[in-house]
């Protein structure tokens, strides 16, 4: 699933025949995982979180059609997510009050159509430019839409938003969609179909031309393509899928409000996509799952979660700029050449001091937080179940030592690991398996 395609080239050294399992194996596995997940993670919260993840996976993938595939930085992706959600909610309410016999399962389509329609409208305006100018137009459009959403109170329902009842539509096969598990499967199916559709899109002439426009928009013109048209189609289709994601979010929460189309939501999807990795199709999926998990769970562990969030992002862009998927993809040639065992010990060696440094740092953050913010609770606190006083010198000494020594050792181990990786890669290439 990477940029470098493997066309079936009979007669060429690594040409590959596509069997059913080789071509669709990953997808079959994904479907099985989606079906089994709610039986492994069965709690109400887990279901809710997984529904959220499914929605965000579609959203992040739709965003990567722009950022990763076409090289367009947009600040307004949530506009289509939100408008798709609102249209879905309104469509559901109209269907319910008018007795239109449509089952709930098709309603995300309304979101998709809305996303596509607004993608066409805003795309016609913004894709006339590329690069920073494009980014700034999307920023302006996003601000205009989210401000208008508060002013147009009847359509957007004001601050409270618009609510709906997902159980009030016709029940197909006895599915009421009251229980969350039914909603999970609805989202899972849509997530699977959308992801497959977006993956298929990358394998079309248009998908490849998007990559070409991303790499070198000028040259794309000299092989016959109008870059503006490419951007426009990409933008509109991206709106379609973002709208579907919005529709699913609306069904999941049964409420849609103006905050869903604001800049914060657009920022979230940029973070998800980038952290997961824009260079790889699975990147945004990983990013959506990870960031959603952190959003749900991190605030329970610490009340300065935003600080950790920020540090995570800074660390990611400095150390892992091609995202988690990129990090994994870099191990693939080693894996194929059976060279991974040469670097794995170095990874483990770097991990231990790395974790120590992180522990030291978060300990210092938590102690500072205890002393500064929870001043009325006194200095007594616990970190990793170890109780101590935040104003005593010993914990600070421990934390500082962990941080300093951990960082120093980590940097050394990381250098060694990089060295080992380069050697293993060279060895893999020598074996003729890698590129």
């Amino acid at each position, binding site marked *: 699933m990477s940029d470098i395609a493997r066309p079936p080239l009979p007669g060429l050294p690594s040409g590959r025949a596509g069997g059913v399992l080789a071509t669709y194996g990953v997808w079959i596995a994904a479907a099985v995982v989606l079906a089994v997940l709610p039986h492994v993670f069965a709690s109400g919260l887990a279901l809710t979180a997984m529904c959220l993840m499914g929605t965000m996976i579609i959203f992040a993938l739709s965003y990567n059609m722009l950022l990763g595939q076409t090289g367009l930085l947009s600040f307004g992706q949530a506009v289509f997510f939100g408008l798709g959600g609102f249209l879905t909610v309104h469509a559901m309410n109209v269907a319910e009050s008018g007795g239109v016999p449509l089952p709930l399962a098709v309603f995300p389509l309304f979101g998709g159509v809305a996303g596509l329609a607004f993608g066409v409208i805003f795309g016609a305006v913004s894709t006339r430019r590329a690069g920073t100018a494009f980014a700034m137009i999307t920023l302006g459009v996003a601000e205009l839409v989210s*401000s208008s959403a508060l002013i147009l109170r009847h359509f957007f329902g004001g*601050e*409270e*938003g618009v609510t709906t009842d997902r159980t009030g539509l016709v029940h197909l096969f006895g599915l009421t969609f009251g229980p969350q598990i039914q909603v999970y499967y609805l989202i899972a199916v849509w997530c699977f179909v959308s992801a497959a559709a977006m993956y298929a899109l990358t394998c079309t002439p248009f998908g490849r031309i998007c990559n070409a426009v991303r790499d070198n928009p000028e040259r794309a013109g000299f092989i016959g393509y109008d870059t503006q048209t490419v951007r426009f189609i990409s933008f509109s289709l991206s709106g379609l899928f973002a709208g579907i994601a919005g529709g699913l979010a609306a069904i999941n929460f049964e409420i849609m409000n103006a905050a869903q189309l604001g800049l914060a939501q657009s920022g979230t999807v940029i973070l998800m996509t980038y952290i997961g990795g824009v260079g790889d199709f699975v990147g945004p999926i990983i990013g959506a799952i990870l960031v959603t998990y952190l959003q*749900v769970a991190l605030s329970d562990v610490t009340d300065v979660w935003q600080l950790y969030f920020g540090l995570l992002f800074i660390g990611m862009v400095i150390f892992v700029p091609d995202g988690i998927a990129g990090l994994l993809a870099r191990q693939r040639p080693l894996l194929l050449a059976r060279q991974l065992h040469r670097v794995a010990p170095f990874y483990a060696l770097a991990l231990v001091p790395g974790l120590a440094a992180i522990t030291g740092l978060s300990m210092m953050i938590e102690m500072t937080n205890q002393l500064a913010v929870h001043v009325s609770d006194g200095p007594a606190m616990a970190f990793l179940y170890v109780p101590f006083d935040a104003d005593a010198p010993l914990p600070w000494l421990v934390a500082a030592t962990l941080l300093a020594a951990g960082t120093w050792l980590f940097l050394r181990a990381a250098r060694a690991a990089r060295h080992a990786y380069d050697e293993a890669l060279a060895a893999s290439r020598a074996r003729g398996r890698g590129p």
Partner: protein
Amino acid sequence: MRKGLVSTAFALSMLGSAAMPSMAEDTLKIGYVDPLSGGGASIGQIGLDQLHFIADTVNAKGGVLGSKIEIIAYDNKLSPQASLVQVQKAIDEGVHIIVQGNGSAVAAAIENFVAKYNERNPGKDIVYLNYAAIDPILTNQSCSYWHFSWDANVDVKMEALTNFMKSRADIKKVYLIDQDYSFGHSVADAAMRMLKAKRPDIQIVGNEFHPLVKITDFSPYVAKIRASGADTVITGNWGQDLALLIKAAGDAGLKVNWYTFYAGGAGGPTAVKQANLPDQVFQVTEGVNNIDYTPAQETARAYMARHQSDPVFYPRMFNLTGMLFKAIEEAHSTDPGKFAPKLEGMKYATFSSGEEGIMRKQDHQFFQPLYISDFGPLNAKQPFDEEHTGWGWKVVAQIPVKDTVTTTTCKMTHSE
């Protein structure tokens, strides 16, 4: 304490719903869902501190029905969607009582969610106690049996405020300025309607709306107010939009009286003091610290000794918890399905003055005496200042319950 445990607890709760509720079955769990990080945290944290204070006080006396009270905090980041995830988390952890206040968008989402949850999960009732969200929609069009509201809603506050204003003959020209979203429009609409009915001679010389938290410079608005010749401004603005408005007025030397909902909110007193507008800014609330009522003032002192940096104090949180515990004791049950009927129509001696308030059965809106207070230098009998400004809130009028009652369109559907 709790924070350390939850990281593992969350991982467990992902695995199965059976793992969690057994942990501490004998406590009465109250889930507090409000912003505890980011911009909204300044107000969310105060409510939490206060709940902890109340829980500690009650637990020291043996708890409620013999169980200790446990407050569990859930950070909702002021987002409706995140709130619903947190409510789900709370339910998984065995919480049946949800307390929330900040943001009508969040309140509406939770109200709607709880109603549907109870309908779809018979016998596992959850109740939602709202201590601060005051959009009238919550107790009108979208009212719910499982939602109880302790702060006076916009209409109720405006009813009280206009009943006060109608007796002030010096008010001749009123200017309305509000944030351009549903809450701001509720305030403006109520003000227009009630002033027209009670004081037709008052001229409304302006009805301005500006986008929510997008204004850095309020001078043009102040110039407009001045040009209109208004002597009084009514505003529902809060937070930065109120602080900057008041400061711009102070800078320009605009001399009007300000009738506000949220001048007492965090940061408000500081702004009024900086703008140097003594006794010109009024607010309508369910109580202020300088009401001469000993039990309330003693509690306030005890609280402030513990939380010196907390600037505001919500009497309504005491009313909420007091009535909740009373209902539980009357029903001999911590099951919302059993104690919720006891809350309906409950009469309760309010925290601020001991005078009686009532939880109206029809829409679950609590009606209580409301107070108009103004902000300025204090005398010896007014011991409480705000935000270390040296100034404090002083009562100028008490509006009795009968003068705060409004009608409701709520048609509650609940079958026992």
